[in-house]
């Protein structure tokens, strides 16, 4: 079971209050987790990745196990701790402003 942490605004859109848990077939990659997330919660399509290019929106980042995965290719395998469900995959709204 993959645990996904969403930013608060996306939790509101998805009508969830805590972490999201997803069944994802092996191999577990950036792409397969986000595909599974958008299949379960279609209202999130377009809010994390572009509908067609699937490129990450500029102000969002992907983290797992204290690693910034934002610039990794979509077929990058996620760390074992994420695959085991011990650590979450985090979609983070980048802090901007000041």
């Amino acid at each position, binding site marked *: 079971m993959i645990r996904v942490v969403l930013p608060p605004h996306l939790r509101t859109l998805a009508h969830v209050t805590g972490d999201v848990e997803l069944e994802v077939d092996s191999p577990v990659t950036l792409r397969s987790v986000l595909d599974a997330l*958008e299949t379960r919660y279609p209202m999130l*399509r377009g809010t994390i990745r572009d509908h067609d290019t699937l490129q990450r929106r500029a102000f969002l980042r992907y983290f797992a196990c204290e690693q910034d995965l934002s610039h990794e290719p979509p077929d990058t395998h996620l760390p074992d701790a994420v695959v085991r469900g011990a650590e979450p995959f985090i979609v983070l709204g980048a802090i901007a402003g000041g």
Partner: protein
Amino acid sequence: MSKVRVLVGTRKGAFILTSDGKREKWDVSGPLFTGWEIYHFKGSSADPNRLYASQTSGWFGQVIQRSDDGGKTWHQPGTPPGESTQTPDGQPKGESNKFVYDASPETGKPLTTHQFYDGTQHPWEFKRVWHLEPSLKDPNTVYAGVEDAAIFRSTDGGVSWHELSGLRGHGTGPKWQPGAGGMCLHTIILDPSNPQRIWIAISAAGAFRTDDGGKSWKPINRGLKSQYIPDPNAEVGHCVHHIAMNPSRPGVLFMQKHWDVMRSDDAGENWREVSGNLPTDFGFVIDVHTHEPETIYVVPIKSDGEHFVHEGKLRVYRSRSGGNEWEPLTKGLPQSNCYVNVLRDAMAVDTLDKCGVYFGTTGGQVYASADAGDSWNPIVRDLPAVLSVEVQTLS
């Protein structure tokens, strides 16, 4: 007794303000869609319980929200949770926040670039929906004006959107350019007497009209003068801020341009300036009295470099002669130390016998006048910056 429902979009959510026909006591509900920019929020005249909202964010992009019960509950009109996003034959289902520019050769000659700030050509990129205009007849049909400038239509209640690509494809696109707020299609006016006719306006391209339901469009900017365009007869490139029309006279249009207040008596074919004695003719909003089609309202703003009201006084100016002769309306409005702006979609009129006028400011106030502008009262004072104000008159 009639009621009014004022729909307010702000930088950080939406609010619904309701009152009876006296328009003295108000109930304020919200915020809805907390923390998101609500660029526009409008109800269907065919079904007042059908509301559409454009919810947008620099982080998360565009979301379309719909209510079928007058704003009590909301949903994104796309695929329900848990349901496949593909049809049985593998085609993607409609998605309410998917605005894809038409690039097919069959439906026009879509352009791929417009002029950018530095004068180079730049590809069209979808950013957000600025304006949602529900059909006058069908609650499931709604038009969206978007940035980068284009018009889309949904005929399934916002579930899926298709571009009316003849607008971008008609030939002048490479001369369109973004204003300071982006290259946005912000005004959509539907002709109640002719369902094939639509007017739109773009900053900074100008005004356009279709007479065939959106297949083909023509620029209608003759008579507009813009200091920054060397060619006095430029067909496009004008920074039109807003256009208003009284439904009883669809051929008569009033425009607040970047500078200059203009009118057209021939459906936009020709424009003439009616700024008259305004203290400054820069501004964003313009609207028309419901029952007096020669009575129009603007809020003069000091300049394009100082986006706040002139002399620290919040004054709505009213002309009862279709322009040129203007009177300041100040009763109930702050007349010192006021430095707010009133953005282009932030004024509306109701249809009650004594026309109500409403506007919102970047300082978060929403003012109402139940006597056509003679006097004003704040409904609320401390909302986030107001982006849009619309009103529904309910029986």
